[in-house]
C-alpha cells in the first residue's frame, strides 16, 4: 500500500519558477488571469508545503485552464464539477493542499450547486473565483454575475437575468473564509491567497478579473488608480472602516444599517466607525450587500471563522473512531455475518 510519506522537516526553498510548467499559457494578452496566475505562483513558496502536496482542480472556462500552468498535481475536470472532484481528492488524502480555480460560470451557474454544498460542509479547499462577469471561452454571452440589462450575443435586447452575488451566496452557505480582491492588486491578492490556503475549511476568494476581450472595463469602477480609493474599501481585522483618496470617509451604523460618512463633518470621528471583525458573521452579511454606487465595495478578508470543524476532519475522525472502537477489523467475520449456519 502506498502511504503518504512523512514530510521532511525541512522544506525545499521554492521560487515561483518551481511552480511554472513548460506549457505555453494560452490566455488572451492582457487577460486578468495572468495576474492571478502570477500571484499564485509567487504565493506558493511561502506556504509551508511540499510542491507535491499541492493539487489544483478546475472546471471549464478560461480560468479553468489554470492547473495546466501550475507545476503541481492538477486536474482540469468538466464544467461546474471542480469542487466535487476537489472534495474527493481531499477525502482520499487530507494531507493535500487542494485549490480550485474557476470562473463565474463554472462556480455559480453550472456548478452553483456544488459551490453551496462544498461551503456548507466546510471541506478544506481553497476556491479562487476569477469573476469577469462574462462567458469568455464561449465568446461573450452574459454570465450569472453579469449585470441585468447586459447586451451580449444571447441577450441582444439586454439580459433579463438578475445577477447572483457570490459573496452573499458564500456567507449564506456558511463558508468559513470569505475574501475579495482585485486582479490588479498584487499585494492584496498575495496576502489573501496565503491566508486562504492556511485556512482550515472552505475558503472562498472572489477576484474581480478583467476580460479585456468580451467585458473590458467591467471592474474599472473599482480597479483603477482613481476609482479604487473611492469605490472600494479595504477591510482589516480590528481596524475601523476607513477609505477614500484622503482616508476621510468611513462606514458607521445608522439605525442598524451601514452608512457612508465623512470623518470630521457633523462631529464624526474614527470612533464612530464600524470596526472590522472578521469573525463576525453579521458583518460579513453586511459586506455582501455593500455595492457600488451606494457603498464602496469591501475588499480583503471579509470573514474568517476557524471554529467550525472541516468535513474531511470529521469524516476521517469517524473512520478513525470506528477503527479504534471496532478493533482489528475481521473481514471473514463480517462476511459470515451473525446468522450463519453450517451444512455438514
Amino acid at each position, binding site marked *: *500500500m*502506498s502511504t503518504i*510519506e512523512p514530510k521532511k522537516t525541512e522544506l525545499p526553498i521554492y521560487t515561483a519558477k518551481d511552480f511554472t*510548467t513548460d*506549457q505555453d499559457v494560452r490566455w488572451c494578452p492582457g487577460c486578468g488571469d495572468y495576474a492571478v496566475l502570477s500571484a499564485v505562483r509567487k504565493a506558493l513558496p511561502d506556504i509551508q508545503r*511540499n*510542491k*507535491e*502536496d499541492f*493539487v489544483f*482542480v478546475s472546471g*471549464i472556462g478560461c480560468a479553468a485552464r489554470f*492547473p*495546466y500552468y*501550475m*507545476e*503541481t*498535481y*492538477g*486536474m*482540469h*475536470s*468538466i464544467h461546474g*464539477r471542480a469542487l*466535487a*472532484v*476537489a*472534495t*474527493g*481528492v*481531499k*477525502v*482520499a*488524502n487530507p*494531507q*493535500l493542499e487542494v485549490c480550485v480555480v474557476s470562473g463565474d460560470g463554472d462556480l455559480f451557474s453550472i456548478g452553483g*450547486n*456544488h459551490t*453551496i*454544498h462544498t461551503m456548507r460542509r466546510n471541506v478544506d479547499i481553497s476556491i479562487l473565483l476569477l469573476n469577469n462577469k462574462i462567458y469568455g471561452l464561449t465568446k461573450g454571452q452574459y454570465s450569472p454575475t453579469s449585470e441585468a440589462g447586459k447586451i451580449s450575443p444571447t441577450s441582444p435586447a439586454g439580459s433579463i437575468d438578475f445577477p447572483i452575488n457570490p459573496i452573499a451566496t458564500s456567507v449564506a452557505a456558511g463558508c468559513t473564509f470569505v475574501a475579495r480582491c482585485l486582479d490588479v492588486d498584487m499585494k492584496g491578492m498575495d496576502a489573501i491567497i496565503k491566508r486562504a490556503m492556511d485556512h482550515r475549511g472552505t475558503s472562498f476568494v472572489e477576484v474581480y478579473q478583467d476580460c479585456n476581450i468580451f467585458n473590458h472595463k467591467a471592474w474599472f469602477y473599482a480597479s483603477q488608480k482613481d476609482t479604487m480609493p473611492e469605490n472600494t474599501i479595504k477591510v482589516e481585522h480590528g481596524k475601523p472602516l476607513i477609505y477614500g483618496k484622503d482616508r476621510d470617509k468611513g462606514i458607521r451604523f445608522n439605525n442598524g444599517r451601514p452608512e457612508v460618512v465623512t470623518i470630521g463633518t457633523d462631529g464624526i470621528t474614527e470612533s464612530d466607525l464600524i470596526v472590522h471583525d472578521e469573525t463576525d458573521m453579521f458583518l460579513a452579511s453586511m459586506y455582501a450587500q455593500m455595492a457600488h454606487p451606494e457603498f464602496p465595495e469591501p475588499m480583503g478578508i471579509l470573514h474568517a471563522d476557524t471554529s467550525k470543524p472541516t468535513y474531511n476532519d470529521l*469524516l476521517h475522525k*469517524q*473512520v478513525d*473512531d*470506528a*477503527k479504534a*472502537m471496532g478493533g482489528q*477489523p475481521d*473481514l*471473514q467475520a*463480517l*462476511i*459470515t*455475518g451473525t*446468522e*450463519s*449456519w*453450517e*451444512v*455438514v
Partner: protein
Amino acid sequence: MPTEQSIETQPTTLDSVVIRFCGDSGDGMQLTGGQFTDTSAIFGNDFATFPDFPAEIRAPKGTTFGVSGFQVHFSSEHIHTPGDRVNAMIAMNPAGFKMNIMDVEPGGIVIVNEDEFTKNNLTKCGYLDGYNPIDDDELTNKYHFVKVPMSRLTRESLADSGMGAKDINRCRNMFALGIVYWLYERPLETTKSYLNKKFAVKKGLPEVAKINIRALEAGYYFGETAEVFPARYRVPKAKHEKGTYRQISGNEATVLGFVTAGQKANKPVVYASYPITPASNVLHGLAHLKRFGIKTIQAEDEIAAICTAIGASFAGDIAITGTSGPGLALKGEAMGLALMLELPLVVVDVQRAGPATGLPTKTEQADLLQAMYGRHCESPLIIVAPRSPSDCFKMAIEAVRLAVEFMTPVIYLSDGYIGNGAEPWKIPNLESIPDIKITHPTKEDSGDEKFLPYARNPETLARPWAIPGTPGLEHRVGSLEKEAETGNVSYDPDNHDMMVRLRAKKVANAAASIPLLEVDGDSSGDVLVLGWGGTYGSITTAIEQVRANGHKVSSAHLQYLNPFPSNTEEVLRSFKKIVIPEINLGQLSVLIRSKFLIDTIGINIVKGKPFKVETLVERITEVVKS
C-alpha cells in the same frame, strides 16, 4: 415452543413451497417475510426471495397502491427463483388480497385477516358495495380459504399486557407469522431472538419485544388448536454442499464485495452516492463499515457523487459511485471524464424500471445500452453484471479488479430484483480470493527521465497511477484530449484518432483478463439460450424444465458485457438459434447482432418483474420445437 406430541397427524412432505405475505405498506410485510426467510435459511432450506413494495412509503392506508408484498420460495431442492405460483398467501387486508390473489395457484391456501375485510376497507380498494371476496363462492371454492380474525385474536391475546392499542395492533404481523410457522413446522427461536435484539437490546423496549413474541406464539398456538388447516407441511432441509452458509441479498453482497476488494487491494474505499431506490442500501451498508477504512459520502447530487469519486481515485483511493438508471444518465459526462483521465472507477447501477422515474421499486434490465453507449463520443468502458444475489460479491470484486488493472471506469449492472432478493450463500474463504495488486509509481521508477503520465503498460495498455503527494511526479490530467505519453493538451488530429482507438483497444484488451463464456449443456446444437445479469435464476430454472420435458437446449449466461468473453462468437456460432430472454425490448440482441452479425430471437417482457419460469419454458419450447 410446542412439542412434537402436539401434532396429531403426520405432516405432508413437500419439495418446495412458495409463500407470499401481503398487506398494507405499514403492516410490516417485509419484516415478516424476512423473518420467515431467516428461519427457513437457518433450518436448512434452499430459498429465494422477492420483496415487492410500492414507491410510496405510507400510501393511504388500505389502498391498492399501498400494498407491500414479500414472496419466499423455500425448498429441499436446489432452486434459483422465488417461484411463479404462490402456494400459500397471507393477506393482511382486502387491498393486499385483491392485488395478489391472481398469483395463487388454484387450491392454494389463502389465509386472510378477516377483521380487516370491513365495508369501509373493501370500498377503499375498489370492491363494489356489498361484495366481499372472502364470501364469494367462486373464490372460496377455488382456493382453500382460512379466515382468521387476526386483529381481534392479537388484541385478546395481549389484553393483559398493559400496552396501548397501537402497539398491540402492530403485533398482528407476528400473529400471522406464528400461524405460518405452525403450518410449515418452523421453529420460533430465530424470530424470538431477532425481536429481542431489535426491540429489547437495540431500542431499549423490552415490553415491545415481549408482546411481539407473545403474538407470534399466539398465532402458532392458534394454528395448532384451531383445526382450520387441511394438513401441516414439511419441507425438509436441502442438500447443500458442506460449508458455512448465510442468507444474502444482492445489495448486501455488493457491499461485502467492495469491502473485500478494498482489503484485498490494501486500500481505503471511497463510496460516493446520492440516495436512489433501489441502490440506497449499498450506501447504507457501507456507511456502517468505516472500521474497514470505508469512507462514504452522501453527495449533493448524482454528478457530485461521481465527480467526488473521480477526485478520490485521482488521489489514490478505490473509488466507487452508486446509483440506478436515472442517476447513471446524470453521471454520463463524468464517466467520460474518468475514461479520458484513465482513472479507475466503479459505477454501480442497480437497475430499475423506467424511463424517467418509471417504476422505482420494480426491476428491469433496460440500462444495458445506456451503460454501453450512453455517453458522448467514443467512450467505451468495461461493463460487468452479477447474475444472482450472491454473485454480486464476486462481481463487485471483479469490477474493482478490472478498474485498477485497466485504469478505466467499470459499470456494474445489478438490478432491483437481485439487489433486494436473497438466497443462501456458501461463505467463501477469504484466503481463496486473490489480492488486487496496485502499484503507484515513484520518482525512482522514472529516474532522471521526465515522468510520462500517459505511458502504457504494453500488455494492458493501462497508464501509470501516480498519485498526488508523490515527490517528483507532479503532473496534470484533464478533460481535453491529451498527447500520447506526456498527457499534455493536444489538438493534433492524428493524435486524437490514435487516442480514441487506444482507449477502445484498452477496454477490448480486458477480454484477455476475464473468464470464458461457459455453456451449460451440449457445446453445440440447435438452440442456445443466452442471458445476462439478474435473469440467471429464471433462465436456469426454465432450462431445467425444458430439458425435463425431453427437449435438448443449451444455455450460457454473460456476466461480462463489455468486452464480451473472448469465446463468445465461437459459442454463438455453435448453435443454429440464439434465444435471448431479457427484461427489456432486446438490448443484448442489439449488441450481439451488431457485433457478430448473428441473428437472435428475443424473449422480451417488461413488466417490472422478474421472468415467470413458465413463460420462459413456454417460449423456449416454442423455439426448440419450431
